[in-house]
């Protein structure tokens, strides 16, 4: 137990907001009133342990992942490493690339073990873990820029679909990105898998050496960043249509290969208003925002 964490119901009386250090999650569960209370209590009890637990292995989690070698001891840390391992031999990646998704899964798992729920989501800063009981579904909306609340697409996830994790990565987000995508949203079987894959795909949406892309060494911005001296995107000027197409294409190629190996189920890649989507047949683009889309909107 720590006394840093802030845990409270949001003013709508339905959603639970929990924050501790950099972890900031919004939870909503659906089911009988008693079950909801059980789920939230379990979520809160587990939540207060998480940051200290992760920080005990933080140095390890910030080092490049290897596909052999030791597993960390905490369940979340272990899930992080497992999620990034498939990429370890081809690219630079640390377990931190999956931290948000792994935390979301942990809280979701705690709640579904404690209570009988029809649906639940844990949104950890845009990385979302889903619980969908048989016959239930979620409608998911996506926004390209957190500061502009317009949906660039919606999709429906039904209980029979394998998807239980959604993650978004982009240079405008809270974490540093090596690429220039405004937003890459990935659907995968778990939130940690989605989180790692969104990072990898967003890094791939890139125009190396392009003069309109401002890049700074990560360590110059945050001395203890796991990205060290790697250049992270800080600004992207207006790009020519060909450049946008090339960058999106680079991202989509990576996304396709991940989809081929089952690491993701669908991806939507957005750059300066252009979006390319793979995998989601029912992914309705340019949804009518005025329609009361019941479901999640993440930024």
């Amino acid at each position, binding site marked *: 137990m720590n006394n840093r964490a802030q845990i409270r119901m949001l*003013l709508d009386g339905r959603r639970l907001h929990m924050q501790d250090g950099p972890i900031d999650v919004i939870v909503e569960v659906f089911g009988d009133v008693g079950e909801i209370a059980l789920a939230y209590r379990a979520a809160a009890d587990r939540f207060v342990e998480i940051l200290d637990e992760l920080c005990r292995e933080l140095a390890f989690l910030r080092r490049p992942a290897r596909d052999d070698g030791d597993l960390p001891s905490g369940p979340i840390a272990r899930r992080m490493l497992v999620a990034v391992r498939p990429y370890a031999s081809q690219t630079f990646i640390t377990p931190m690339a999956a931290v948000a998704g792994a935390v979301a899964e942990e809280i979701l798992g705690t709640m579904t073990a404690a209570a009988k729920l029809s649906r639940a989501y844990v949104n950890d800063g845009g990385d979302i873990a889903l619980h969908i009981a048989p016959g239930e579904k979620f409608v998911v909306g996506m926004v390209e820029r957190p500061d502009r609340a317009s949906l660039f697409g919606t999709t429906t996830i039904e209980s029979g679909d394998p998807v239980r994790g959604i993650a978004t990565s982009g240079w405008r987000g809270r974490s540093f990105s090596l690429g220039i995508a405004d937003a890459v949203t990935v659907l995968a079987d778990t939130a940690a898998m989605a989180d790692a894959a969104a990072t990898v795909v967003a890094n791939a949406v890139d125009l190396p050496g392009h003069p309109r892309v401002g890049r700074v060494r990560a360590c110059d911005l945050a*001395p203890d960043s796991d990205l060290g001296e790697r250049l992270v995107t800080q600004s992207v000027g207006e790009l020519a249509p060909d450049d946008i197409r090339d960058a999106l294409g680079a991202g989509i190629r990576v996304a396709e290969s991940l989809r081929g190996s089952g690491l993701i189920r669908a991806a939507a890649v957005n750059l300066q208003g252009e979006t390319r989507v793979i995998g989601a047949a029912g992914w309705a683009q340019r949804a009518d925002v005025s329609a009361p889309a019941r479901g999640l909107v993440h930024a």
Partner: protein
Amino acid sequence: MPVADDAIRCDACPVLCYIKPGRTGACDRYANADGQLVRLDPHVVLERAVSRGDTLVPFLEKSREWDGALLTGEETFVTAIGAGTTYPDYKPAPFIISSEVAGVDMVTVVTEGIFSYCGVKLKIDTDRHLGAECSTVRAQGEAVGHVTTNEYGSQMLSLGGVRHLTGGSRHEGTATCDALLNVCNRQAVELKIDDGATVIVQADKAPIVDGVQEERMRVGCGSATIGMFAKQWFGKVDEVVVVDDHITGVLSEHQAGKLLGVPETGIALKGRRSTPGRYFRVAEPGTSWGGTNIDDPLSILGPFDREVARPGLRLLMVSTTGEHHAYFELDEQLRPAEKELPAALRESVERIRENCEPALCTVLFMGGAGGSLRAGVTENPVKLTHSVRDALTRVTCGGAPVYVWPGGGITIMADVSRMPENAFGYVPTPALVAPIEFTLKLSDYATLGGYMDHVRPLSSITSISRDEESRRRLAARPDNPWPLASEKRK
């Protein structure tokens, strides 16, 4: 802790980010502003909800749904919580907001002040002896304050102050800041008093003294208790001793007993007799019966006078809170033998308990707004002092009313329980970051040299359509005067 490249280490959470100037930590909540760690929490906006009795939708209380009915305009007050600070204070306060109240343009200047001159006055409702006056109060082993006066039914402690914050060792300053932050944010803090008790304090909660949770304040001193209950005891018992560390009362000798005609009982009290039926120092101070150190009440009695006492004499001993009580009857050798408390007396013991209010810890934040903080409000800081003094400017802390100490400067006291949750932060100086708002008429603001070109309409704060979590909208507490209300202004 400064490290290379002017980065500072944030110790707000175990991630321990190194933050470069102008950047935020991983949480986006703490930032390095010119070498100072500052907090950037979502801005707290107090909503004056029409008829709600609560301040926040409490965690896990689903029964009370938010009714969504919020008013706008003058009904919204922007607090300084999360506003950021002006330190080192040469620039205007982060938010200078105008809102129209009853046809008069009002300005609220909100800032989070960095208070080096600040502390907490802590009132702990207990009759137990916590420690001698002037004793050092420690948190995490470091001196963070001292024991001050004993008030009626309460022990006052003073925590913090500039000497502990910055005048001692680094550890002392950090422990002091930590204790102040937690106690102001209504968290539990464990305090150890030199040669005294260990007490866990938390605003609006009962103190826990040496592991025992205090329940009730005493109804009065032992003598006063005799006076209050003498009539109810008369005829049901022959003698009553109300055990109290301050003044222990004895019914048969007390003026109240004499008036009723209670006969002498031959009882002999230890301690020093003050006036008839009133005894000082029947035992040493402690955390047991009536704030003394005794566990056996008979230990404060000498042998009964054989000339006066008689077998079968009924004796009730009770503490000033009714928490401890015992009933005796004298045997053939005139020795008190404990018996079950008769029902008729149980009622009076219950009545004593009932008249004792719940024991609480209450926390007043006390701080002084320095010249530089005032400079964030006006180009001529002393004018703000004068304006506050003339009651043209209202000062609030996180929307809560404050008492402005008379005399020079702006030294304020505010009840932390009336402020929103987690209203306080800190900087590693170490110093406390507390919200402070100055509200005055727009015309008065211009007169005192305000930063008129920085005044923003309220709508620019409340209508920013970022995600709904970016501002904390709280219902105002109904027991706080509305900061913008004009009827309370002189």
